[in-house]
């Protein structure tokens, strides 16, 4: 018998500090598989956010630097402009990319910065204990929406991928999830494509990944993985939101 599944090379041998069933662990692993398969571990520079994944550099065996909350897209812009030979990616949560970092994200996309944003959408602020995120669903209970999210007071879940699709400089945007074998495989394909977009010098690419947060959703891992299908995808449909890469630099 031969081994058909092993840890990717660019994933460090550290034990994940993430909760049981957390999507970060899956996504880190899948990204490292892509980095290995596409062979750019020695060119990659990653920017993790403040958040549960602040320690991403303990897992990704690539050059990494911490960023101020929300500023990942600006930091990545600075790196890529200073050293275009690098493959630069940000790894950001829903608060980082869609609340405090909205300006930086929109404008990096608008300039068509050749960076890849991996956007982890778990509909809640994980690290800080489960507060409302811009992507929290209506009626969803969080520690700052104890009565359920009310559109009149707290607004609606924000669809960053759809918003970014309107921006010319963003050339490839896809929304996936990591709550089933099929979805994990699709996520890996999307991440590949996003990095290929950068390598092909076509523009800004983003993959929004619906990710389970059992702890702050107050569910078991199995329930959390199911909740993504049952509820999240109703608000955040999966699929390619925008892909103009086939047409080269055209809008």
């Amino acid at each position, binding site marked *: 018998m031969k081994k058909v599944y092993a840890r990717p090379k660019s994933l460090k041998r550290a034990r994940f500090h993430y909760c049981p069933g957390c999507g970060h662990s899956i996504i880190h692993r899948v990204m490292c598989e892509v980095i290995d398969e596409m062979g*750019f*571990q*020695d*060119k*990659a*520079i990653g920017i993790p956010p*403040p958040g549960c994944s*602040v320690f991403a*550099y303990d897992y*990704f*065996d*690539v*050059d*990494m*630097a*911490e*960023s*101020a909350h929300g*500023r990942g897209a*600006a*930091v*990545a*812009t*600075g*790196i*890529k*402009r*200073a*050293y275009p*030979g*690098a*493959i630069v990616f940000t790894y950001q949560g829903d608060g980082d990319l869609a609340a405090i970092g909205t*300006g*930086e994200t*929109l*404008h990096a996309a608008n*300039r068509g910065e050749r960076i890849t944003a991996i956007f982890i959408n778990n509909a809640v602020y994980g690290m800080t204990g489960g507060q409302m995120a811009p992507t929290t669903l209506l009626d969803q209970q969080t520690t700052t929406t104890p009565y359920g999210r009310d559109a009149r007071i707290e607004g609606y879940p924000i669809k960053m991928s759809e918003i970014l699709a309107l921006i010319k400089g963003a050339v490839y945007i896809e929304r996936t999830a990591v709550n089933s074998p099929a979805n994990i495989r699709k996520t890996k394909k999307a991440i590949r494509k996003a990095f290929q977009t950068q390598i092909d010098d076509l523009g800004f690419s983003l993959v929004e990944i619906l990710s389970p947060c059992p702890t702050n959703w107050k569910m078991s891992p199995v329930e959390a993985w199911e909740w993504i299908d049952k509820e999240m995808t109703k608000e955040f449909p999966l699929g390619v939101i925008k892909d103009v890469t086939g047409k080269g630099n055209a809008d």
Partner: protein
Amino acid sequence: MDGNSAIGEAAIRAGCQCYFGYPITPQNELTEYMAAHLSRRKGCSFIQAESEISAINMVYGASLAGVRAMTSSSSPGISLKQEGISYLAACELPAVIVNMSRGGPGLGSIVASQSDYFQATRGGGHGDYRTIVLAPSSVQELADLIHRAFDLADRYLIPVVVLGDGMLGQMKEPVEFKYEAPEELPVRSRALRGAKGRPSRIIKTFTSKPSELEEINWSLYRRYQLIKKKEVTYETFLIEDADLVIVAFGMAARIARGAIKNARADGLKVGMFRPITLWPFPSEELRELANRVKNFLVFEMNMGQMLEDVQLALEGKGEVFFYGRPGGVIPTPSEVFRVASRLCYQKGLK
């Protein structure tokens, strides 16, 4: 050349590869100069960012990648950059930040002021850190100090603030650039360039172990002690026989010169001590001076900021007086002369 443009030319000649900025009066000539002259240079990058916050974070990114990077703004925009400066200082990343200060607080005014002294010299952002602060008082000195700023930033792995003001930026004076940009722009070591042939590199300070962070802080502290020992810079004007010494920086020092010339013509023995590094502040040298001189007049365009550093430095030796005009009002030399005069008569220094 106007001061703002001189900064741009000086930075390019110092090997600045990346400039990220945002329009704000009174420094727009600098941003525009970089757009015109830096953006097309090989390997260089100019971005008019979406905000001052984005700009400082882009500088952080460029510095991570090992190149000389600069941003500029004026007072309120510099407030926005404080978090980013804290991160630069924490991660020991070189960068040059130019503040052409204007009246504050709040939206303030668009004319020159010196009310960002505290902001510049006390770190400015959160955490226990410092930045080197250079205060030029002529367009020539602006050009020279920009070059020095990049060198200091690289040598000590620290962000360096060049504290000018709106007037200095707008003034047109002859300037000579004493250096050229190098042919090959070097890349700093310990940069993030992709982990080729070496272990992957992590640049961060966040830690869950307080003792780790303590060690980082002490290591920064030791570096600051070294900078204090080696980089203090100041200038004196007619202090050898002075009974009253005006302490002033930047534009205020220019104005004070005029006042001192008038005073001397009147037989009053007034001189000037001009700090050029506001951090590290020339405390020892000032204290030395107080062995002989008993009267100091701190003159600045604010409500009294460098005043505190002078008081701290003198440790009670000698008397310290203050004259300031906040809010962007530019005092005249004759105004300062009158104040100095009155002081001399009051203290019997005639």
